[in-house]
Structures are given as C-alpha cells and as structure tokens.
C-alpha cells in the first residue's frame, strides 16, 4: 500500500489516458439509458394515473418488478433471455451496448415512473379544477398548468437518479460491455496492480459524479417554491 505513490509515478501516464478513453463510452451508455428511462417512466406514470384499469395494472406490475429486481439480474435477463427465447430471429445488432442500455433503461423507467407519478399526484387537485373552470380542456390544463409544475417537483429526484445511473454503468461490465470498469479490470489483472488501478478507476468515477451531485443539490435548493 505504501508503494502506491511509486506505482502511480511509474504507470499513471499509461493507465490514466487509457482509462479516460473509456469515459466517453460510459457517458454514452448513461445518456441513452437515461433518455430511455425518462420515456418509459413517463409512459408508465401516465398509465398509472389514467382511468383504464388495464393500463394501471400493467404499469403497476412493471414498476414493482423493475424496482424489485437487482440491476444485475435485469441486465442478464435482457441480454441473455431474448436470444434464447427466439433463436430464429437475427440478433447481430443486439450487442452489449444495446443490452446495457435497454437493461438500465428498463430499471430506470421503473424508478422514474414512481418519481413522475408522485410529482403528478403531489399537485393539489385544486390546480386542475382552477384550470378546467377557466375553460381549459384537460389537455391544455396538463400542458400549461400541471406539467410545468410537475417538472419543477421532479427535477431533483431525476437528477439524483442520473448520478446513480452513471455509477450503475459499471455493472454493464458483467455482460461484457467494454466500458471503464472492464478496462480497469483488464489493466489491473494484466499488470498485477489491482489496488492501484481500481482506486484510480474509483477516482475517475468520483470525478464524474461529484460535480453532478453538487449541481443536483443546487437545483434542489433553488427549485422549491412555496405553495
């Protein structure tokens, strides 16, 4: 352990650039998965607050399963199960990136569905009534009155989710995705320096997530308006 500074002095100029080259992949996975999670989450939240019992139940099951399964398990199921269930179809396009993004997206959608739902429900029903009394259709009320307020309520938890997502990309290494964690593993075992390399990798993740968490905290402070 005490040799760490020496080890770094010798190797860091090789290790660091290589690890950093995988930051882009990590960010790409996170970005696409985030977008997917938002879309799915929004759809699920709208289903949960709709009047159709079928939609409500399907969405409820999705949310319960998506939040009840470990991310690792979701990734494995998404990546390995479909090709086995439908061996006839062509799976060439279904690489680790696609699997990672879909897996993370499905998990994130379940989390965000709850965030969006409580955001929509937190709004005093009086707001909707006031909008309707002014002659707005439900659609207009949603667009001009409900959603703008819901977005403000929802932004801090969504920001927190995004930070968690960034860290969760490390789990994609388990389905063979070539991102930061996987690269760290190869270097660490090739050079017999697990402590040094993994601590370095941790530092890189920290460098990505800490600024974001500061932004998220700032947003949280600024976005609470009184009622």
């Amino acid at each position: 352990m005490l040799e760490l500074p020496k080890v770094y002095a010798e190797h860091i100029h090789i290790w660091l650039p290589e690890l950093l080259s995988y930051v882009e992949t990590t960010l790409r996975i996170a970005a696409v998965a985030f977008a997917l999670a938002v879309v799915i989450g929004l759809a699920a939240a709208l289903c949960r607050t709709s009047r159709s019992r079928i939609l409500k139940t399907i969405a409820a099951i999705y949310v319960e399963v998506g939040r009840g399964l470990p991310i690792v398990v979701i990734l494995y199921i998404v990546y390995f199960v479909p090709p086995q269930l439908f061996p006839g179809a062509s799976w060439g396009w279904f690489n680790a990136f696609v699997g990672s993004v879909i897996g993370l997206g499905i998990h994130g959608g379940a989390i965000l569905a709850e965030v969006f739902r409580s955001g929509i429900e937190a709004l005093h029903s009086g707001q909707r009534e006031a909008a309707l009394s002014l002659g707005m259709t439900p659609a207009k009320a949603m667009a001009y009155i409900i959603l703008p307020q819901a977005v403000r309520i929802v932004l801090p938890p969504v920001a927190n989710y995004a930070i968690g997502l960034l860290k969760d990309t490390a789990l994609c290494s388990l389905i063979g995705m070539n991102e930061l964690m996987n690269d760290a593993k190869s270097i660490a075992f090739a050079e017999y320096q697990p402590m040094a390399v993994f601590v370095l990798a941790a530092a890189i993740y920290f460098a990505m997530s800490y600024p974001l968490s500061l932004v998220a905290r700032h947003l949280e402070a600024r976005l609470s308006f009184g009622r």
Partner: protein
Amino acid sequence: MRFFEVLGQKGEYFLITLLGGWPTTVKVAAGALVFALIFGLVIALLRLSRWRAFRIPAIAYIEFFRGTPLLVQLFVIYFGLPDAGFEPTPLQAAIVGMGLNGSAYLAEIYRAGIEAIHRGQMEAALSLGMTPARAMRYIILPQAMRTMLPPITSFSIVMLKDTAVVSVIAAPEIMFYARNLVTETLQSAVIYCMAGALYLCMTVPMARLVARLERSRRAWQ
C-alpha cells in the same frame, strides 16, 4: 415453447441449486446491514459534530462511498487488499464492502432524520439541564428512529438487491450459482428468470411493508 419444456424438466433441479445461494445472500445482506446501521450512525454523528476535525473526514467518507460504484469498491477490497497483506474471503469482502458503502447512505438517512427533529427539541432538552450527548440519546434519537423506519427499510431492500453484485467476487450467493448453472447447462433464459423470481419473492413483500409503514407514519403526523 422450449422455455416451459425446460422449466418443467429441469426446473426443480435449477431451483434447488439456486436456493443453495440463498443463505449467502441473506448472510451478506444482513451482515452488511448491521454493519451499516452501526457504522452509519457513527459517521452521521461525526457529520453532525461541532468540530471540523470530525466533520470533514465524515463528509469525505460519505461523498466518496456515495460517489463511486459499489463494484469498484468491492474490487478494491477483494483484489486490492491482498497486496497490503489482508486476504479477505469473498464473504468477508462482500460484507465489509457493502457495509462501508451502506454506511455512507445510512449516514445521510440518519442525518436527515435527526435534523428533522433537532432544533426545538434539543433546545428544550438543554434547557432542562441535559448535556448535548444525553439530549441526543434520550430525546433526539428515539424520536428520529420512528420517522426513519421507512427509509431504513427501503434501504434494506436496496442492500438485498446489491448482493447480486457480489457474485463477481465469487461470493456464493444466488447470482453466483445462477451464472455457474448457465455455464453448465446453457439454459440462461429459464435460470435467470428463475433467479429474478427469487429476488422478487424477497423484495416485493418488503416493498409492500415499506408502503404500509409510510402510510402509518403519515397517519401519525
């Protein structure tokens, strides 16, 4: 479909094998939870302390363990420590790793719970002649515990799910057995779905419990 054929033929064998990992799953989750509950309280109290010498390391600890992935932390402990002379077993590394990680999250839960009660109550306790320590022990913490029950239970569910990650450091829990089984039989669909179902059997009832706790807490207020 082939899925149900395999399920029918080998299902029982798969299930029994997977359940072999269940004790470890529970051991790791419970061990890490206890670790985190105790150590998290320590960190929280340090975080809330008046002296910067205590506060700053606590903050650094929390930021670091919350700002880096659990996977990396586990790798550092399991693969990195042997360099320094400690050779943890997979189980030990899993519990320590998840425990340290969990402590950071629980410290924040504790802090939120304590701060929610803190102000007026502390003033009242101090006016009665209690030291801050006594006030914390007899007045603040007992009240905070009640409001913190739902977030702590929520967090236990997260712990349970995180045990799936420790399969990578060869801890013999459910996912570890699942992966070996798949390597052996190539029946990834049935096996992974079954593993998923096992997790759901644990997490869904707990999630319902949390919901019920939340509702009764709101009724309290």
